[in-house]
């Protein structure tokens, strides 16, 4: 019988003092209640949201999800335009942010001179820490006029044949402005996770490839990327999840219109922005319940996106575990 067996034995049978037993019980009990509390909290959130949306669900059913238009006078509400807005802004922001974020991650893990690595990493993390209301303020007052006066018309004249880049009008607050703001917001999330992933690629793999005569880019493309692929996908999905839930920065810059437009230079709205702008003064019980229905849709999507990211991470970790062996 080794000494190890004795200690684990002692761990299983607590020291037979009544005071000790009570202390153990109290700690385990209160910690257990806390853990249970977390589960209860999530359940409560889901319940409250469903309860608030019940009136709208029973009035509109699932058709609410596709109906386009928000008419408080005739009491017809639908999530269609907001789902469209959320999808367009978040997907576009993801498309714009991912290559830049990966570039930053590669730069910080492979290319940057030692002295620059620390400061620029800190810079990227600071960008992540800027609150959404500040970025929204900046987007509204600094970015929107610049886009309206210079960028939107230029994009329209260069790419106007694509309906996405239709005639700009004089709106500074439009879907395009919101996309740029969201891109800036999710960029650091994807970048910092990807950076850590590239740093965690085993150096034997990297050096092995370089030793065989590949250029650094070929090593990244052939060894680092495939190794980190799962984590990068998860990072992208986390960034996407952040984008769909962003209410304040988008609310300040998107222009609050409920029509669906292909033209990015027209105002629009998203699920989160609509809730933020309108919950306070809903003019009817049905409108308030419909806003909560929007919140329910947003909640379901956010949870699904989050779980998807976790599942991808777990799958990638399992595969890496196999690879490491």
């Amino acid at each position, binding site marked *: 019988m080794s000494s*190890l067996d*004795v*200690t684990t034995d002692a761990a299983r049978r607590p020291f037979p*003092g009544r005071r*000790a*037993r009570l*202390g*153990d019980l*109290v*700690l385990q009990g209160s*910690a257990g209640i*806390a*853990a249970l509390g*977390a*589960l209860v909290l999530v359940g*409560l*959130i889901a319940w409250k*949201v469903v309860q*608030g949306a019940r009136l709208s669900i029973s009035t509109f059913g699932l058709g609410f999800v596709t109906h386009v238009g928000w008419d408080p006078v005739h009491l017809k509400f639908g999530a269609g335009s907001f789902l469209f807005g959320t999808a367009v802004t978040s997907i576009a922001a993801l498309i714009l942010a991912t*290559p*830049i974020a*990966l*570039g*930053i991650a*590669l*730069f910080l893990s492979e*290319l940057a001179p030692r002295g620059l690595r620390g400061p*620029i990493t*800190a810079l*990227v993390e*600071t*960008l992540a*820490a*800027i*609150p*959404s*209301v*500040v970025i*929204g*303020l900046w987007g509204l*007052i*600094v970015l929107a006029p610049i886009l309206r006066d210079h960028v939107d018309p230029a994009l329209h004249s260069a790419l106007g044949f694509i309906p996405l880049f239709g005639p700009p009008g004089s709106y500074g607050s439009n879907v395009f402005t919101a996309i740029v703001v969201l891109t800036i917001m999710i*960029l650091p999330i994807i*970048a910092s996770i990807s950076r850590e992933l590239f740093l965690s690629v085993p150096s034997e793999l990297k050096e092995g490839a370089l030793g065989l005569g590949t*250029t650094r*880019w*070929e090593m990244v493309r052939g060894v680092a990327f495939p190794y980190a692929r799962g984590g990068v996908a998860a990072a992208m999905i986390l960034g996407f999840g952040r984008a769909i*839930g*962003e209410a304040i920065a988008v609310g*300040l810059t998107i222009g609050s219109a409920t029509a669906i437009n292909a033209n990015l230079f027209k105002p629009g709205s998203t699920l*989160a922005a609509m809730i933020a702008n309108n*919950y*306070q003064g809903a003019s009817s019980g049905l409108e308030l319940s419909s806003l*909560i229905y929007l919140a329910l849709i*947003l909640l379901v999507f*956010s*949870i699904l*996106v*989050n*779980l998807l990211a976790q599942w991808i991470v777990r799958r990638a970790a399992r595969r890496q575990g196999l690879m490491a062996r």
Partner: protein
Amino acid sequence: MRTGDLSVLQRPNDRLRRRRVANRGMELLAWLAAAVAVFFLGVVVWSVAQRGASQLSFDFLTKPQQASGGFGPLNVKQGLANAFAGSFVIVGLATAMALPFGILIAIYVNEFASRLVRSAVGLTLDVLNGVPAIVIGFFVFGLIVVAHGQSAYAGAFALAVIMLPLVARSTIEVLALVPDSLREAALAVGAPRWRTTLGIVLPQTIGGVLTGATLAVARVAGETAPLLFTSSLVATGTHWNPSQALQTVPVAIFELSDSADPADHARAWAAALVLILFILFASLGARWLATRSRRKIARAAG
């Protein structure tokens, strides 16, 4: 140049050159990407600093907003002290609510839970982390505000819900770093479980816990959406009473940005500057604590 005998060497050279060019191109793009990040951060921080610095003064930090409204010369607003006070109270209360709760959850997950419970709680924390702040705001509105009105307590509770998964997860990670040998040594000399956990394991992790807490504070200091539902109908003047709605810095920025008055915009920039400086300070502090605690645990394990 003689052609014939060098032709064998030319082919691999061409390919090598193309590969090198591709490599160079990608390296340039990576540098460009980093420049883009630096550029955007610089532009945002520069805008805030340049436009906010003019309004920053001792008065700004100590005198309350004179009136809300945001129009014309009738408004004699000089300061934002009520927002700083309210943010201090609400974030402080939120931390007091979330920290013990999160630490207890982490202790349960790490020291007592079976594998099933551990993954269930882990899943719950991940789900909680993914709930958008605006939905949490609406949740607390329905739970507390509808029945009892707005208050700093309600706002703090909403922020605490956001902080909880951050604090719990970082504490779990730090607890896991404490080597089992420490726990077993304590148990071997007869210390009970609770004494081991609270007196030996937890103190090892204080640095990590503080790091997680500081990062969580930095995160919620700038949260606007939940406070719009729970603490936005405020009285004029600087108040500290948590049972009434208190003005907060992010909500003040949100309201001031709405206004047509450029003086209001200037005040919004100044408030944004103070907020960014605070968050920067907190994040740097958290990183310093993290490196310190990591070094300490490494020393203990070694």
